Protein backbone atom coordinates (compact mmCIF):
# COMPACT_ATOMS: atom_id res chain seq x y z
CA UNK A 1 0.00 0.00 0.00
CA UNK A 2 2.81 2.30 0.96
CA UNK A 3 4.60 1.75 -2.33
CA UNK A 4 1.40 2.51 -4.18
CA UNK A 5 1.00 5.75 -2.31
CA UNK A 6 4.58 6.71 -3.13
CA UNK A 7 4.08 5.90 -6.76
CA UNK A 8 0.99 8.00 -6.78
CA UNK A 9 2.74 10.97 -5.24
CA UNK A 10 5.57 10.79 -7.77
CA UNK A 11 3.04 10.22 -10.52
CA UNK A 12 1.30 13.41 -9.58
CA UNK A 13 4.43 15.36 -10.35
CA UNK A 14 5.14 13.90 -13.76
CA UNK A 15 5.52 16.53 -16.43
CA UNK A 16 6.45 16.86 -20.08
CA UNK A 17 8.53 19.83 -21.20
CA UNK A 18 7.87 21.46 -24.54
CA UNK A 19 9.68 24.23 -26.35
CA UNK A 20 9.19 25.79 -29.74
CA UNK A 21 12.17 27.57 -31.28
CA UNK A 22 12.09 29.90 -34.23
CA UNK A 23 14.08 28.85 -37.29
CA UNK A 24 17.64 30.23 -37.60
CA UNK A 25 18.06 30.76 -33.87
CA UNK A 26 21.29 30.02 -32.04
CA UNK A 27 21.20 26.31 -31.13
CA UNK A 28 23.50 26.56 -28.14
CA UNK A 29 21.46 29.36 -26.66
CA UNK A 30 18.19 27.50 -27.21
CA UNK A 31 19.67 24.50 -25.41
CA UNK A 32 20.65 26.76 -22.54
CA UNK A 33 17.11 28.18 -22.34
CA UNK A 34 15.76 24.63 -22.30
CA UNK A 35 18.18 23.81 -19.49
CA UNK A 36 16.81 26.82 -17.61
CA UNK A 37 13.31 25.39 -18.02
CA UNK A 38 14.56 22.06 -16.63
CA UNK A 39 16.04 23.89 -13.63
CA UNK A 40 12.77 25.75 -13.08
CA UNK A 41 10.87 22.47 -13.23
CA UNK A 42 13.27 20.99 -10.68
CA UNK A 43 12.80 24.02 -8.44
CA UNK A 44 9.03 23.54 -8.63
CA UNK A 45 9.40 19.93 -7.54
CA UNK A 46 8.24 18.22 -10.73
CA UNK A 47 9.62 15.09 -12.30
CA UNK A 48 10.19 15.54 -16.04
CA UNK A 49 9.31 12.36 -17.93
CA UNK A 50 9.52 13.59 -21.49
CA UNK A 51 10.74 16.43 -23.68
CA UNK A 52 9.53 17.70 -27.01
CA UNK A 53 11.00 20.36 -29.28
CA UNK A 54 9.95 21.81 -32.57
CA UNK A 55 11.52 24.43 -34.80
CA UNK A 56 8.88 26.49 -36.56
CA UNK A 57 7.07 29.79 -36.44
CA UNK A 58 4.21 29.87 -33.92
CA UNK A 59 0.89 28.34 -34.80
CA UNK A 60 -1.99 30.51 -33.63
CA UNK A 61 -4.15 27.57 -32.63
CA UNK A 62 -1.70 25.20 -30.98
CA UNK A 63 1.67 27.06 -30.72
CA UNK A 64 3.29 23.88 -32.22
CA UNK A 65 2.12 22.24 -35.42
CA UNK A 66 -0.99 20.11 -35.38
CA UNK A 67 0.99 16.89 -35.94
CA UNK A 68 3.43 17.69 -33.12
CA UNK A 69 0.54 18.33 -30.75
CA UNK A 70 -0.85 14.88 -31.55
CA UNK A 71 2.59 13.46 -30.89
CA UNK A 72 2.54 15.31 -27.57
CA UNK A 73 -0.87 13.85 -26.73
CA UNK A 74 0.50 10.38 -27.43
CA UNK A 75 3.52 11.06 -25.23
CA UNK A 76 1.21 12.20 -22.43
CA UNK A 77 -0.80 8.97 -22.74
CA UNK A 78 2.33 6.78 -22.82
CA UNK A 79 4.12 8.38 -19.89
CA UNK A 80 1.03 9.07 -17.82
CA UNK A 81 2.13 12.67 -17.31
CA UNK A 82 -0.20 14.98 -15.43
CA UNK A 83 1.03 18.24 -16.79
CA UNK A 84 2.55 19.72 -19.89
CA UNK A 85 4.87 22.68 -19.42
CA UNK A 86 5.57 24.98 -22.36
CA UNK A 87 8.58 27.26 -22.49
CA UNK A 88 6.78 29.62 -24.85
CA UNK A 89 4.05 31.91 -23.69
CA UNK A 90 0.64 30.46 -24.51
CA UNK A 91 -2.47 32.42 -25.33
CA UNK A 92 -5.76 31.43 -23.71
CA UNK A 93 -7.03 29.80 -26.87
CA UNK A 94 -3.81 27.81 -27.24
CA UNK A 95 -3.97 26.68 -23.60
CA UNK A 96 -7.55 25.59 -24.10
CA UNK A 97 -6.93 23.82 -27.44
CA UNK A 98 -3.81 21.98 -26.27
CA UNK A 99 -5.42 20.79 -23.05
CA UNK A 100 -8.43 19.58 -25.07
CA UNK A 101 -6.14 17.47 -27.26
CA UNK A 102 -3.77 16.24 -24.54
CA UNK A 103 -6.44 15.74 -21.88
CA UNK A 104 -4.22 17.09 -19.14
CA UNK A 105 -3.31 20.40 -17.54
CA UNK A 106 -1.16 22.70 -19.66
CA UNK A 107 0.87 25.59 -18.27
CA UNK A 108 3.57 27.89 -19.61
CA UNK A 109 6.84 29.12 -18.14
CA UNK A 110 5.25 32.10 -16.43
CA UNK A 111 2.68 30.01 -14.63
CA UNK A 112 5.52 27.71 -13.60
CA UNK A 113 7.43 30.65 -12.12
CA UNK A 114 4.28 31.67 -10.28
CA UNK A 115 3.92 28.15 -8.91
CA UNK A 116 7.48 28.26 -7.61
CA UNK A 117 6.86 31.64 -6.03
CA UNK A 118 3.64 30.37 -4.46
CA UNK A 119 5.50 27.40 -3.01
CA UNK A 120 8.28 29.53 -1.53
CA UNK A 121 6.12 32.38 -0.26
CA UNK A 122 6.04 32.16 3.51
CA UNK A 123 5.19 35.62 4.80
CA UNK A 124 1.75 37.17 4.57
CA UNK A 125 3.09 39.82 2.26
CA UNK A 126 4.85 37.53 -0.17
CA UNK A 127 1.72 35.39 -0.30
CA UNK A 128 -0.24 38.49 -1.26
CA UNK A 129 2.32 39.36 -3.92
CA UNK A 130 2.13 35.91 -5.43
CA UNK A 131 -1.65 36.01 -5.39
CA UNK A 132 -1.63 39.42 -7.06
CA UNK A 133 0.67 38.18 -9.80
CA UNK A 134 -1.54 35.12 -10.32
CA UNK A 135 -4.71 37.19 -10.50
CA UNK A 136 -3.20 39.66 -12.95
CA UNK A 137 -2.20 36.73 -15.12
CA UNK A 138 -5.65 35.23 -14.80
CA UNK A 139 -7.84 38.26 -15.58
CA UNK A 140 -7.50 38.47 -19.36
CA UNK A 141 -7.81 34.69 -19.50
CA UNK A 142 -10.80 34.46 -17.19
CA UNK A 143 -13.21 36.06 -19.61
CA UNK A 144 -11.95 34.06 -22.59
CA UNK A 145 -11.95 30.75 -20.72
CA UNK A 146 -15.48 31.30 -19.46
CA UNK A 147 -16.64 32.25 -22.93
CA UNK A 148 -14.90 29.24 -24.51
CA UNK A 149 -16.38 26.84 -21.99
CA UNK A 150 -19.88 28.22 -22.07
CA UNK A 151 -20.14 29.05 -25.72
CA UNK A 152 -23.10 26.78 -26.26
CA UNK A 153 -24.89 27.78 -23.10
CA UNK A 154 -24.88 31.46 -23.90
CA UNK A 155 -28.07 33.20 -24.94
CA UNK A 156 -28.30 34.94 -28.29
CA UNK A 157 -26.99 34.12 -31.76
CA UNK A 158 -23.59 32.26 -31.62
CA UNK A 159 -23.58 32.79 -27.89
CA UNK A 160 -22.95 36.50 -28.22
CA UNK A 161 -25.82 37.48 -25.96
CA UNK A 162 -25.35 38.79 -22.48
CA UNK A 163 -23.82 36.46 -19.94
CA UNK A 164 -22.85 37.28 -16.40
CA UNK A 165 -19.08 37.36 -16.04
CA UNK A 166 -18.98 37.40 -12.29
CA UNK A 167 -15.76 35.35 -12.19
CA UNK A 168 -13.83 38.17 -13.84
CA UNK A 169 -15.51 40.73 -11.58
CA UNK A 170 -14.49 38.72 -8.52
CA UNK A 171 -10.90 38.60 -9.69
CA UNK A 172 -10.82 42.36 -10.26
CA UNK A 173 -12.27 43.11 -6.83
CA UNK A 174 -9.72 40.85 -5.21
CA UNK A 175 -6.89 42.58 -7.15
CA UNK A 176 -7.97 46.00 -5.89
CA UNK A 177 -8.08 44.70 -2.30
CA UNK A 178 -4.61 43.18 -2.48
CA UNK A 179 -3.19 46.26 -4.18
CA UNK A 180 -4.39 48.55 -1.42
CA UNK A 181 -3.03 46.20 1.24
CA UNK A 182 0.36 45.98 -0.49
CA UNK A 183 0.31 49.76 -0.97
CA UNK A 184 0.19 50.31 2.75
CA UNK A 185 3.00 47.79 3.24
CA UNK A 186 5.04 49.75 0.71
CA UNK A 187 4.53 52.92 2.73
CA UNK A 188 5.79 51.12 5.83
CA UNK A 189 8.85 50.07 3.85
CA UNK A 190 9.46 53.60 2.66
CA UNK A 191 9.40 54.97 6.17
CA UNK A 192 11.67 52.14 7.31
CA UNK A 193 14.15 53.03 4.57
CA UNK A 194 13.93 56.69 5.59
CA UNK A 195 14.57 55.77 9.20
CA UNK A 196 17.57 53.65 8.25
CA UNK A 197 18.97 56.50 6.16
CA UNK A 198 18.45 58.94 9.02
CA UNK A 199 20.21 56.57 11.36
CA UNK A 200 23.28 56.84 9.17
CA UNK A 201 23.04 53.52 7.41
CA UNK A 202 23.85 53.24 3.75
CA UNK A 203 21.68 50.78 1.91
CA UNK A 204 23.33 48.17 -0.28
CA UNK A 205 21.48 45.51 -2.19
CA UNK A 206 22.51 42.30 -3.87
CA UNK A 207 21.07 41.85 -7.32
CA UNK A 208 21.78 39.40 -10.10
CA UNK A 209 20.58 36.53 -12.17
CA UNK A 210 18.93 33.72 -10.30
CA UNK A 211 21.37 31.06 -9.00
CA UNK A 212 24.38 33.41 -9.23
CA UNK A 213 25.20 32.87 -5.56
CA UNK A 214 23.74 36.01 -4.02
CA UNK A 215 22.67 34.31 -0.81
CA UNK A 216 26.04 32.57 -0.44
CA UNK A 217 27.79 35.91 -0.79
CA UNK A 218 25.32 37.42 1.67
CA UNK A 219 26.12 34.71 4.22
CA UNK A 220 29.84 35.04 3.69
CA UNK A 221 29.96 38.79 4.03
CA UNK A 222 27.62 39.30 6.99
CA UNK A 223 28.30 35.97 8.67
CA UNK A 224 24.71 34.83 8.55
CA UNK A 225 23.05 31.55 7.68
CA UNK A 226 20.38 32.26 5.10
CA UNK A 227 19.21 29.21 3.20
CA UNK A 228 21.27 28.62 0.06
CA UNK A 229 20.71 25.94 -2.54
CA UNK A 230 21.83 25.14 -6.04
CA UNK A 231 18.34 25.93 -7.23
CA UNK A 232 16.53 28.80 -8.92
CA UNK A 233 14.58 31.26 -6.77
CA UNK A 234 15.77 30.02 -3.39
CA UNK A 235 15.40 33.55 -2.04
CA UNK A 236 12.05 35.23 -2.44
CA UNK A 237 11.69 37.49 0.55
CA UNK A 238 14.33 40.18 0.92
CA UNK A 239 16.57 39.68 3.94
CA UNK A 240 18.47 42.59 5.46
CA UNK A 241 21.47 42.47 7.80
CA UNK A 242 23.95 45.02 9.09
CA UNK A 243 27.36 45.09 7.49
CA UNK A 244 30.41 46.63 9.15
CA UNK A 245 32.74 48.37 6.71
CA UNK A 246 35.54 49.40 9.03
CA UNK A 247 33.43 51.64 11.23
CA UNK A 248 30.92 52.64 8.61
CA UNK A 249 27.61 50.91 8.98
CA UNK A 250 25.67 49.67 6.00
CA UNK A 251 22.65 47.46 5.54
CA UNK A 252 22.95 44.68 3.01
CA UNK A 253 19.79 43.24 1.47
CA UNK A 254 19.56 39.90 -0.27
CA UNK A 255 16.88 39.88 -2.99
CA UNK A 256 15.09 37.72 -5.51
CA UNK A 257 17.05 36.87 -8.66
CA UNK A 258 16.25 38.00 -12.16
CA UNK A 259 15.35 35.74 -15.03
CA UNK A 260 15.25 36.33 -18.75
CA UNK A 261 12.04 37.76 -20.23
CA UNK A 262 10.40 38.14 -16.86
CA UNK A 263 7.15 39.80 -17.93
CA UNK A 264 6.28 43.26 -16.68
CA UNK A 265 3.22 42.23 -14.73
CA UNK A 266 5.39 39.87 -12.72
CA UNK A 267 8.00 42.56 -12.06
CA UNK A 268 5.22 44.93 -11.00
CA UNK A 269 3.73 42.40 -8.61
CA UNK A 270 7.08 42.08 -6.89
CA UNK A 271 7.62 45.82 -7.00
CA UNK A 272 7.90 46.18 -3.26
CA UNK A 273 10.54 43.45 -3.22
CA UNK A 274 12.47 44.96 -6.10
CA UNK A 275 12.16 48.43 -4.58
CA UNK A 276 14.78 47.25 -2.13
CA UNK A 277 17.14 47.15 -5.09
CA UNK A 278 15.93 50.24 -6.91
CA UNK A 279 16.08 52.53 -3.89
CA UNK A 280 19.45 51.53 -2.47
CA UNK A 281 22.65 53.58 -2.43
CA UNK A 282 24.70 50.90 -4.10
CA UNK A 283 23.95 47.74 -6.04
CA UNK A 284 26.16 44.68 -5.97
CA UNK A 285 25.45 42.89 -9.22
CA UNK A 286 26.45 39.27 -8.67
CA UNK A 287 27.50 37.21 -11.69
CA UNK A 288 28.58 33.58 -11.96
CA UNK A 289 32.00 33.86 -13.62
CA UNK A 290 32.39 30.12 -14.12
CA UNK A 291 29.96 30.21 -17.02
CA UNK A 292 30.78 30.89 -20.66
CA UNK A 293 31.46 34.58 -21.47
CA UNK A 294 28.51 34.69 -23.90
CA UNK A 295 26.23 33.44 -21.17
CA UNK A 296 27.57 35.98 -18.68
CA UNK A 297 26.97 38.75 -21.20
CA UNK A 298 23.40 37.59 -21.74
CA UNK A 299 22.73 37.50 -17.99
CA UNK A 300 24.33 40.91 -17.42
CA UNK A 301 22.19 42.29 -20.21
CA UNK A 302 19.05 40.86 -18.57
CA UNK A 303 20.06 42.41 -15.25
CA UNK A 304 20.76 45.81 -16.84
CA UNK A 305 17.44 45.59 -18.66
CA UNK A 306 15.54 45.03 -15.43
CA UNK A 307 17.46 47.67 -13.52
CA UNK A 308 18.10 50.46 -15.98
CA UNK A 309 14.73 52.24 -16.01
CA UNK A 310 14.52 52.58 -12.28
CA UNK A 311 17.96 53.01 -10.80
CA UNK A 312 19.04 56.26 -12.48
CA UNK A 313 22.48 57.08 -11.15
CA UNK A 314 22.86 54.39 -8.49
CA UNK A 315 26.41 53.04 -8.79
CA UNK A 316 26.83 49.35 -9.60
CA UNK A 317 29.66 47.10 -8.48
CA UNK A 318 29.90 43.90 -10.54
CA UNK A 319 30.82 40.99 -8.31
CA UNK A 320 32.20 38.01 -10.22
CA UNK A 321 31.36 35.12 -7.95
CA UNK A 322 32.62 31.51 -8.10
CA UNK A 323 36.09 32.71 -9.18
CA UNK A 324 37.53 29.58 -7.51
CA UNK A 325 36.09 27.50 -10.36
CA UNK A 326 38.06 29.42 -12.98
CA UNK A 327 41.80 29.28 -13.56
CA UNK A 328 43.39 32.53 -12.41
CA UNK A 329 45.18 33.02 -15.72
CA UNK A 330 41.84 33.02 -17.53
CA UNK A 331 40.28 35.79 -15.46
CA UNK A 332 41.93 38.59 -17.45
CA UNK A 333 40.72 37.10 -20.72
CA UNK A 334 37.18 36.87 -19.40
CA UNK A 335 37.29 40.43 -18.14
CA UNK A 336 38.47 41.64 -21.53
CA UNK A 337 35.49 39.99 -23.22
CA UNK A 338 32.81 41.19 -20.83
CA UNK A 339 34.41 44.30 -19.37
CA UNK A 340 32.19 46.71 -21.31
CA UNK A 341 29.13 45.33 -19.52
CA UNK A 342 30.62 45.10 -16.05
CA UNK A 343 31.18 48.33 -14.15
CA UNK A 344 33.70 48.18 -11.27
CA UNK A 345 34.49 44.47 -11.41
CA UNK A 346 35.64 42.50 -8.34
CA UNK A 347 36.51 38.79 -8.36
CA UNK A 348 35.48 36.78 -5.30
CA UNK A 349 34.60 33.32 -4.19
CA UNK A 350 31.77 33.52 -1.69
CA UNK A 351 32.05 29.81 -0.90
CA UNK A 352 35.72 29.98 -0.01
CA UNK A 353 35.58 33.53 1.32
CA UNK A 354 38.28 34.94 -0.94
CA UNK A 355 38.26 38.50 -2.24
CA UNK A 356 36.00 39.81 0.53
CA UNK A 357 38.45 42.54 1.58
CA UNK A 358 38.74 43.82 -1.99
CA UNK A 359 34.94 43.80 -2.27
CA UNK A 360 34.57 45.84 0.92
CA UNK A 361 37.10 48.39 -0.36
CA UNK A 362 35.17 48.65 -3.64
CA UNK A 363 31.89 49.07 -1.73
CA UNK A 364 33.33 51.86 0.40
CA UNK A 365 34.64 53.60 -2.70
CA UNK A 366 31.17 53.87 -4.21
CA UNK A 367 29.01 54.63 -1.20
CA UNK A 368 27.78 58.22 -0.84
CA UNK A 369 30.77 60.16 0.53
CA UNK A 370 31.16 60.95 4.18
CA UNK A 371 32.39 64.34 5.34
CA UNK A 372 35.23 64.92 7.72
CA UNK A 373 35.04 67.67 10.35
CA UNK A 374 36.38 68.75 13.70
CA UNK A 375 33.82 69.55 16.38
CA UNK A 376 34.20 71.12 19.76
CA UNK A 377 31.62 70.04 22.34
CA UNK A 378 31.07 71.55 25.78
CA UNK A 379 32.52 69.33 28.49
CA UNK A 380 29.17 68.83 30.17
CA UNK A 381 26.55 66.13 30.50
CA UNK A 382 24.85 67.41 27.36
CA UNK A 383 28.17 67.41 25.49
CA UNK A 384 28.73 63.80 26.52
CA UNK A 385 25.30 62.78 25.26
CA UNK A 386 26.00 64.47 21.92
CA UNK A 387 29.31 62.60 21.79
CA UNK A 388 27.65 59.23 22.35
CA UNK A 389 25.17 60.11 19.59
CA UNK A 390 28.13 60.91 17.31
CA UNK A 391 29.62 57.50 18.08
CA UNK A 392 26.37 55.88 16.98
CA UNK A 393 26.03 57.78 13.72
CA UNK A 394 29.54 57.78 12.30
CA UNK A 395 33.21 57.19 12.91
CA UNK A 396 35.02 59.13 15.66
CA UNK A 397 38.69 59.33 14.72
CA UNK A 398 40.05 61.21 17.74
CA UNK A 399 38.66 62.57 21.01
CA UNK A 400 40.43 64.93 23.36
CA UNK A 401 38.91 65.81 26.70
CA UNK A 402 40.07 69.29 27.71
CA UNK A 403 38.08 72.32 28.75
CA UNK A 404 35.91 71.39 25.84
CA UNK A 405 35.69 68.03 24.10
CA UNK A 406 37.48 68.12 20.74
CA UNK A 407 36.36 65.50 18.24
CA UNK A 408 37.62 64.59 14.76
CA UNK A 409 34.60 63.13 13.14
CA UNK A 410 33.50 61.48 9.90
CA UNK A 411 29.88 60.90 8.89
CA UNK A 412 27.26 61.61 6.25
CA UNK A 413 26.74 65.31 5.48
CA UNK A 414 23.25 65.28 7.03
CA UNK A 415 24.58 63.98 10.33
CA UNK A 416 27.29 66.63 10.47
CA UNK A 417 24.77 69.38 9.71
CA UNK A 418 22.58 68.07 12.51
CA UNK A 419 25.54 67.99 14.87
CA UNK A 420 26.31 71.63 14.03
CA UNK A 421 22.66 72.56 14.54
CA UNK A 422 22.68 70.79 17.91
CA UNK A 423 25.85 72.52 19.00
CA UNK A 424 25.09 76.07 17.88
CA UNK A 425 22.60 77.08 20.59
CA UNK A 426 24.96 75.61 23.21
CA UNK A 427 27.88 77.57 21.89
CA UNK A 428 25.91 80.80 22.12
CA UNK A 429 25.13 80.29 25.82
Amino acid at each position, binding site marked *: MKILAEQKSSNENRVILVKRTIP*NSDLEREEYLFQELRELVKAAGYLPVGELKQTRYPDSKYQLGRGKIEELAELVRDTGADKVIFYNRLSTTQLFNISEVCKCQVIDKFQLILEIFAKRATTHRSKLQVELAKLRYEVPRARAVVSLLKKEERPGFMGLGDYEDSYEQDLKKRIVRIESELGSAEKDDESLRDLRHRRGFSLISLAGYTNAGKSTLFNAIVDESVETKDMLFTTLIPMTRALDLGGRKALLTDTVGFIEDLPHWLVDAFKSTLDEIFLSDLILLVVDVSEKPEMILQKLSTAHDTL*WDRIQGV*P*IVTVFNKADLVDESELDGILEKIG*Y*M*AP*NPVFISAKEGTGMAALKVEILKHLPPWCFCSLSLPNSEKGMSVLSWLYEEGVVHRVEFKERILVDYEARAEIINRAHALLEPQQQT
Partner: protein
Amino acid sequence: MWDIIAVDISGRHRIKGGYYMVCAAAALTVSASYIEKVKQIKILPLWLKRAPSLLDIVQLIEDTADQLSFEGTIVAEKGDMYNKPSWMTESMFSRAFKYQESIAERRSIELVHHISLSARNLLINELQIEA
Protein backbone atom coordinates in the same frame (compact mmCIF):
# COMPACT_ATOMS: atom_id res chain seq x y z
CA MET B 1 37.24 52.39 -22.86
CA TRP B 2 35.35 51.79 -26.07
CA ASP B 3 34.47 53.99 -29.02
CA ILE B 4 30.83 53.94 -29.97
CA ILE B 5 28.47 55.93 -32.15
CA ALA B 6 25.12 56.24 -30.40
CA VAL B 7 22.15 56.95 -32.67
CA ASP B 8 18.50 57.72 -32.12
CA ILE B 9 15.68 58.80 -34.41
CA SER B 10 12.81 61.09 -33.42
CA GLY B 11 9.56 61.71 -35.24
CA ARG B 12 8.60 58.31 -36.54
CA HIS B 13 4.92 59.14 -36.35
CA ARG B 14 2.76 60.56 -39.12
CA ILE B 15 2.24 64.30 -39.23
CA LYS B 16 0.55 66.39 -41.90
CA GLY B 17 1.99 65.41 -45.26
CA GLY B 18 4.18 62.51 -44.17
CA TYR B 19 6.97 61.70 -41.75
CA TYR B 20 9.51 64.25 -40.54
CA MET B 21 12.32 62.40 -38.85
CA VAL B 22 15.50 63.66 -37.26
CA CYS B 23 18.38 61.30 -36.61
CA ALA B 24 21.10 62.23 -34.12
CA ALA B 25 24.46 60.48 -33.91
CA ALA B 26 27.14 61.08 -31.32
CA ALA B 27 30.71 59.75 -31.38
CA LEU B 28 31.52 58.85 -27.79
CA THR B 29 34.11 57.10 -25.71
CA VAL B 30 32.48 55.10 -22.94
CA SER B 31 33.53 52.97 -20.00
CA ALA B 32 31.25 50.31 -18.54
CA SER B 33 29.01 52.71 -16.68
CA TYR B 34 29.87 56.24 -17.84
CA ILE B 35 30.21 58.35 -20.95
CA GLU B 36 33.85 59.36 -20.70
CA LYS B 37 34.09 61.68 -23.70
CA VAL B 38 31.74 63.23 -26.25
CA LYS B 39 33.82 63.74 -29.39
CA GLN B 40 31.34 64.90 -32.02
CA ILE B 41 27.60 65.17 -32.61
CA LYS B 42 25.73 65.34 -35.92
CA ILE B 43 22.06 65.47 -36.83
CA LEU B 44 20.26 64.73 -40.08
CA PRO B 45 16.59 65.45 -40.88
CA LEU B 46 14.61 63.42 -43.41
CA TRP B 47 11.22 63.94 -45.06
CA LEU B 48 9.35 60.82 -46.15
CA LYS B 49 5.95 60.72 -47.80
CA ARG B 50 5.35 57.10 -46.84
CA ALA B 51 5.90 55.19 -43.61
CA PRO B 52 9.62 54.46 -43.06
CA SER B 53 10.72 50.89 -43.76
CA LEU B 54 13.62 49.14 -42.05
CA LEU B 55 15.87 49.95 -45.01
CA ASP B 56 15.02 53.67 -44.78
CA ILE B 57 16.01 53.60 -41.14
CA VAL B 58 19.29 51.82 -41.86
CA GLN B 59 20.08 54.33 -44.64
CA LEU B 60 19.27 57.30 -42.39
CA ILE B 61 21.47 55.99 -39.58
CA GLU B 62 24.32 55.23 -42.00
CA ASP B 63 24.10 58.72 -43.56
CA THR B 64 24.14 60.42 -40.17
CA ALA B 65 27.02 58.30 -38.89
CA ASP B 66 28.98 59.02 -42.10
CA GLN B 67 29.04 62.72 -41.24
CA LEU B 68 31.07 61.99 -38.12
CA SER B 69 34.82 61.99 -38.42
CA PHE B 70 35.24 59.26 -35.80
CA GLU B 71 34.88 55.51 -36.07
CA GLY B 72 33.01 53.27 -33.66
CA THR B 73 30.35 50.62 -33.27
CA ILE B 74 26.88 51.99 -33.98
CA VAL B 75 24.63 51.48 -30.97
CA ALA B 76 20.86 51.84 -31.26
CA GLU B 77 17.71 50.86 -29.42
CA LYS B 78 16.00 47.67 -30.47
CA GLY B 79 12.73 49.56 -30.92
CA ASP B 80 14.36 51.84 -33.50
CA MET B 81 15.03 48.82 -35.68
CA TYR B 82 11.45 47.51 -35.44
CA ASN B 83 12.57 45.00 -32.76
CA LYS B 84 14.32 42.89 -35.38
CA PRO B 85 16.75 40.26 -34.03
CA SER B 86 20.34 41.44 -33.84
CA TRP B 87 21.72 38.95 -36.40
CA MET B 88 19.45 40.54 -38.99
CA THR B 89 20.25 44.18 -38.26
CA GLU B 90 23.97 43.54 -37.82
CA SER B 91 24.13 42.24 -41.37
CA MET B 92 22.39 45.30 -42.81
CA PHE B 93 25.01 47.87 -41.79
CA SER B 94 28.31 48.56 -43.50
CA ARG B 95 30.07 48.92 -40.16
CA ALA B 96 29.78 47.24 -36.76
CA PHE B 97 26.34 47.53 -35.22
CA LYS B 98 24.82 46.41 -31.92
CA TYR B 99 21.86 47.02 -29.66
CA GLN B 100 22.36 48.85 -26.38
CA GLU B 101 23.54 46.63 -23.53
CA SER B 102 25.73 48.23 -20.90
CA ILE B 103 24.82 51.08 -18.58
CA ALA B 104 27.02 53.51 -20.53
CA GLU B 105 25.42 52.52 -23.82
CA ARG B 106 21.99 53.11 -22.35
CA ARG B 107 23.11 56.50 -21.07
CA SER B 108 24.47 57.34 -24.52
CA ILE B 109 21.18 56.44 -26.17
CA GLU B 110 19.42 58.69 -23.68
CA LEU B 111 21.77 61.52 -24.59
CA VAL B 112 21.19 61.21 -28.35
CA HIS B 113 17.48 60.79 -27.77
CA HIS B 114 17.36 64.21 -26.10
CA ILE B 115 19.44 65.68 -28.93
CA SER B 116 17.26 64.30 -31.73
CA LEU B 117 14.04 65.21 -29.95
CA SER B 118 15.00 68.80 -29.23
CA ALA B 119 16.58 69.23 -32.68
CA ARG B 120 13.33 68.05 -34.27
CA ASN B 121 11.23 70.36 -32.09
CA LEU B 122 13.49 73.27 -33.01
CA LEU B 123 13.38 72.49 -36.74
CA ILE B 124 9.61 72.10 -36.72
CA ASN B 125 9.34 75.51 -35.06
CA GLU B 126 11.85 77.27 -37.29
CA LEU B 127 10.64 75.78 -40.58
CA GLN B 128 7.03 76.19 -39.50
CA ILE B 129 6.19 72.61 -40.26
CA GLU B 130 2.64 71.71 -39.30
CA ALA B 131 2.87 68.88 -36.83
